[in-house]
């Protein structure tokens, strides 16, 4: 290194150090997939996520602490996700929290996060047993998991039939993406099938899910009373088209939230009419205050991310809500550890563990009507288990059910036993109440 570069480097270093001293910043890595087979679903999520972070900055940051963020493209590949995670985790003073946005990456990062002390926030996805905060100290599947989704779908079907006892002898098929993501709901569905005596048929579809002829042939032969669809990306629209070709009534199909957004049904259009999907609290929310804020404060100034028309769609809202929950975790941490300061991973973990989003807070954030209040605790990293069912009417998603709550009686023992199995495999000691205070 010669003298000139040395001077330049030093000067640069001083300038950046000075900038840091002036404004406190909080770094948020954004792992997203905007390319590859799942891009149609990944891109709106990322747009919502980034827009929310931008909006926080427009609103003046978290008690004055501005958010800094950087996006990294994973292409839904686990190895690439790990690379992105490693690249971003120490940048700009360290990552506040990370949202892996894929079940495979969640599994891989779950092993790394406790060492790096970075909370892993998985809003509505990831590993369901990580709701148990005593074992999964760093995982936060806030506002629902795939087990909540599966449980409430069964409840919704039960309501349609006129009571869960009417499910006895019925046939329910699960058409799922053959990966950890698709397999997540199986333990819960098996539990429910034991309880109510319905017959559960498992129909795996090989990734990415374009080839489903054999699966739907089985559906044609078995004629199940209901079909649950656990797919995403191109698999969903293919399944709906196959259902149409098979003549299977779309009204009897229930998708998970990854199979319940605009990109999944848009191409099928009228053919998907009547198709239901579980909405993890929110659906498409173009009327919400948050969407109005984004349009007024970001898109009106050409600061928005992605197409303006997609603001408020299902996956966009999911991204925004995911970002909001993470940011609120930081805010909660600030309330305890000092307002207007940059929080570290450990402090944010405490914040996420002590979230208390009341209705008033949600209203202030512009999420009134979008979701219900949520409060998490050391033991319960999920906070709430509420969903709604929405139905595609050919043009838009409309809510077709009331709020549904997953049955604690079923969920809790399952979470407990699976988490305990994980703890024994990893030789982890579950956290004590004293550890919860920290």
């Amino acid at each position: 290194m010669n003298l000139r570069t040395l001077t330049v480097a030093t000067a640069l270093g001083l300038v950046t150090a000075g900038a840091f001293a002036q404004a406190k910043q909080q770094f948020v890595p954004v792992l997203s997939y905007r390319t590859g087979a799942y891009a149609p679903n990944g891109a709106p999520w990322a747009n919502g996520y980034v827009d929310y972070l931008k909006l926080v900055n427009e609103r003046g940051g978290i008690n004055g602490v501005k958010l800094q963020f950087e996006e990294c493209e994973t292409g839904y590949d686990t190895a690439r996700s790990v690379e992105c995670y490693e690249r971003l985790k120490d940048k700009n003073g360290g990552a506040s929290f990370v949202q892996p946005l894929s079940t495979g990456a969640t599994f891989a990062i779950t092993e790394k996060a406790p060492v790096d002390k970075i909370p892993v926030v998985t809003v509505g996805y990831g590993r369901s047993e990580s709701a148990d905060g005593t074992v999964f100290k760093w995982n936060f599947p806030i506002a629902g998991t795939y087990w909540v989704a599966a449980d409430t779908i069964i409840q919704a079907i039960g309501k349609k039939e006129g009571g869960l006892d009417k499910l006895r002898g019925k046939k329910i098929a699960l058409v799922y993406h053959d990966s950890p993501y698709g397999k997540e709901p199986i333990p819960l569905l098996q539990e429910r099938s034991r309880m109510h005596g319905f017959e559960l048929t498992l129909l795996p579809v090989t990734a990415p899910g374009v080839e489903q002829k054999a699966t739907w042939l089985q559906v044609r032969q078995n004629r199940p009373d209901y079909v649950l669809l656990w797919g995403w990306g191109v698999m969903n629209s293919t399944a709906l088209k196959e259902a149409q070709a098979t003549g299977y009534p779309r009204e009897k199909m229930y998708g998970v939230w990854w199979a319940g957004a605009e990109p999944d049904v848009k191409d099928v259009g009228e053919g998907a009419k009547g198709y239901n999907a579980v909405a993890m609290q929110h659906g498409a929310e173009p009327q919400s205050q948050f969407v109005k804020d984004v349009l007024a404060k970001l898109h009106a100034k050409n600061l928005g991310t992605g197409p303006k028309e997609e603001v408020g769609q299902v996956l966009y809202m999911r991204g925004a809500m995911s970002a909001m929950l993470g940011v609120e975790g930081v805010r909660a941490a600030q309330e305890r550890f000092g307002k207007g300061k940059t929080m570290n991973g450990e402090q944010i973990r405490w914040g996420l563990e002590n979230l208390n989003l009341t209705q008033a807070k949600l209203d202030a954030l512009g999420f009134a009507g979008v979701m219900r209040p949520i409060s998490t605790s050391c033991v319960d990293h999920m906070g709430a288990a509420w969903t709604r069912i929405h139905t595609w009417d050919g043009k838009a998603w409309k809510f077709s059910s009331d709020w549904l709550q997953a049955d604690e009686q079923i969920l809790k023992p399952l979470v407990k036993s699976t988490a305990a199995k994980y703890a024994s495999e990893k030789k982890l000691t579950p956290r004590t109440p004293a550890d919860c205070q920290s």
Partner: protein
Amino acid sequence: MFYRENGQFKTTYRADQQVFPILQDRVAIWALLAAAFVVVPFLASDYLMRAILIPFLIMSLAALGVNVLVGYCGQISLGSGAFMAVGAYGAYNIFVRIPGMPLVPALLLGGLCATAFGILFGLPSLRVKGLYLAVATLAAQFFSDWMFLRIKWFTLDTPSGSVSVSNLQVFGLPVESAASRYVFCLAVLVAMAVLTKNLVRGAIGREWMAIRDMDVAAAVIGIRPMHAKLSAFAVSSFIIGVAGALWAFVYLGAWEPAAFSVDLSFRLLFMVIIGGLGSIMGSFFGAAFIIVLPVVLNQVLPALAGLVGAEISTVGISHAELMLFGGLIVWFLIVEPHGLARLWSTGKQKLRTWPFPY
């Protein structure tokens, strides 16, 4: 200039048969090894080691294994991802099911599982070759995808089918920090590379190459095709299996069958073709090309765009990466079909005769 062998006389057969006959090469390789083992762990950042060097080392090892089979023995295989998967899940089952199982034997036993699997799926090579064999080995890939997704025993009945390992230790030392993981992978790679290099220089390697160049002629001079082909499958899948186990244990930590998809098989084949068929050095070049280049492009492109005042989105980077990557592959294959290793040796030859080439 400095790369000249004048005055380096070899007076024994041993000296003549060294892996690196030229003094400068020996010095360079020792310096490189010393730097890799001693300097890098202290200087390289956590990110550099965890996200670039470790994957590079593991993929180099896998490419080495593929090179044994495809490059040295001429048996085109599209099942490398499956061999990696068998190595990973084999090592996992041994590691988790046997209490107190140390890491290194678990990895090696995982490699042996892959060996058995490789020999099994190498059997068709006795009858078919070339493209037909490639398709036959593709069966191994689909079989392993099916096996690890469906047979719950392999994943210890985990509901989601994703498995994970932790608390890795070697001789009582934890392998958790980036530096320790890096050194561990490097040690495995160096040991395997030295063994492989000597194997391909010896009688077995010559048999493989004879089979590759013309199997009928090889049979005529007394080489047993069955023995040669199956031993190539065995050695290759052992190395690939160990690489798979490392990829799962050391790099990912938790994985699902999709981590070893057919995509990976193709990427391994590209590594070998771009790096150089039938060359140990080529495996490293190929792995670097496929693993490191996208990451580097990912980091350099935004900086480059920043210089001209443009901002480039992640989508733009990802597309540019694909285009550049495809372009570079085509360019390399046109300019040097024998891969980067041949470019390297041409360069070396030029240096040796510089400044008076003949």
